[in-house]
């Protein structure tokens, strides 16, 4: 479904990604793991067009995304849940969700999708008139995921959904991701929380200083000695 071939990206003169190749098949959940500064966020920003590709090929269902601006990429079915939620704090929950359905193709189905999101996250229905900035961290993550779902995506890019949340809330958030998988969404998730995320996904890539170090099924990586030592500490 989503395919990256030798993708490089840079911030000015600083190269952040080196020849990254990665693919996500329909219905899969794939994780990109790695430490701070490895380029995980950059990778997602490149896919959703917030950062241009410096070299390489990037396709969604066989269609190149290289020349597409972000507002066209989302129309191909890629929704990005940004790092740190990034809600519109002074808009209500429902207005945030409404913004999620901003693209032309999604506006007509706004009501229908709103019901889907409220069914998925009843808490959001309870808080629909509340300013998004006043939600708790876990609720904000729900709202951010809900907002991404409003565009009717085929694949959901999630950037560290567990960041800055209490352990019990992290548990809940991963529960949400699991439910999304159950709903048939394809998920590409970026995480530092290696142990928990490996229980959730089918496959994973390990990204270090901008290049893919290793990849494999979740079970393989969970058993990998070097990975265990470096990231799980057992």
């Amino acid at each position: 479904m989503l395919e990256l071939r030798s993708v490089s990206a840079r911030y000015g003169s600083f190269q952040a990604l080196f020849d990254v190749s990665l693919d996500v098949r329909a219905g899969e959940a794939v994780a990109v793991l790695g430490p701070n500064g490895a380029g995980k966020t950059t990778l997602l920003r490149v896919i959703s067009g917030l950062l241009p590709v410096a070299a390489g090929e990037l396709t969604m269902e066989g269609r190149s995304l290289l020349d597409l601006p972000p507002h066209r990429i989302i129309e191909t079915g890629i929704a990005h849940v940004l790092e740190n939620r990034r809600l519109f704090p002074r808009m209500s929950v429902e207005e945030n969700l409404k913004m999620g359905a901003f693209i032309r193709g999604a506006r007509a189905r706004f009501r229908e999708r709103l019901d889907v999101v409220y069914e998925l996250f009843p808490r959001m229905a309870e808080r629909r008139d509340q300013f998004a900035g006043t939600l708790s961290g876990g609720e904000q993550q729900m709202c951010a995921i809900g907002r991404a779902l409003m565009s009717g995506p085929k694949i959901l890019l999630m950037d560290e959904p567990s960041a800055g949340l209490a352990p019990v809330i992290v548990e809940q958030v991963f529960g949400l991701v699991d439910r999304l998988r159950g709903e048939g969404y394809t998920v590409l998730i970026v995480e530092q929380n290696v142990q928990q995320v490996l229980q959730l996904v089918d496959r994973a890539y390990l990204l270090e200083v901008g290049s893919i170090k290793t990849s494999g099924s979740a079970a393989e990586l969970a058993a990998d000695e070097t990975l265990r030592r470096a990231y799980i500490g057992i």
Partner: protein
Amino acid sequence: MTGRRLQYAGLAVLVALPFVGVPEYYMHILVLILIWGFVYTAWAIMGRFGLVSLGHGAFLGIGAYTVALAWNLLGLTPWLGIPLGVGLAVLVAVVIGYPCFRFRVVGHYFALVTLALGEVVRLTIVALRDHTGGSLGLTPNRYGEGTSLYALQFADKEVFYVIALLLWLAGIWIWRRVDASMARFAMDALSEDEDAAASVGVHVTAQKLRITMLSAALTALGGGVYAQYLLYVNPGTVSGIGVSLQIVFAAIAGGMFTALGPTVGAMITIVLAETLRIAIGTEVIGLDTTIYGVMLILFIIFLPKGVLGGLIELYERRTAGGAGAMAGKREVGGGA
């Protein structure tokens, strides 16, 4: 609803005014309030979304000078001169706005760019003194007896009052249209978080550019009408820092988040300036403008949502009785 009835009543009064023999001086003040109210509204159409322009004098000046120069030098009727000025202002807005928005020049940096733009236009007008009359200003040539639809010149203040009223109503109508549109949501969203707005599919550059073009066009239109009304344009009064800041202050003082806020700003600033000017006169030079400045600062500090915005908030808080979810929502909004 009483609100709607109040609106019609207010409109009826405004329409009736020229027929009841209002003294000329007050008619003049009313026309000024309507024209400036329109210009302040045009500024606030983009200003409310965090696109704070400190250089709207540029667009005002382009509108005013284009119509006057087209008339004097080319004999072009203001009916064509005004659209020409509007077109030029939009062109300048694109030339300045596109690179700013494309390369994410936001906040203070954007304000500085616009500040420079206002000065560039003023200095250009002064520098072209052979045609524009430089800092002495320019007087459009009188046509015939002084009243002509073709030349858009009217000896009667009442006629211009009607023109200014129509202009102002158009401005409020456009504001409402923008306010009810999806673009308003997009602008609200990107003024809060540009990346997040881009991530949900808002074309940030295009969206900002469109609202800036609209604001510039309306401001230039106001400038053109202002020139026709006074039949005198001066680089200091239609362009440059002074008038640019006056636009910002008045719109903020009145309340830039409500349709009528900028107009209230025009009423307050013009009435205040006139009252102070008459009360103090020329005995202590500069005292009136000093008091005017101090009062504006006080308005802005103590009524951050503007006079009208503050009053509306007070009224809503009263009627809501301070309880319920909505009141809680407002608290948060007022605090930030």
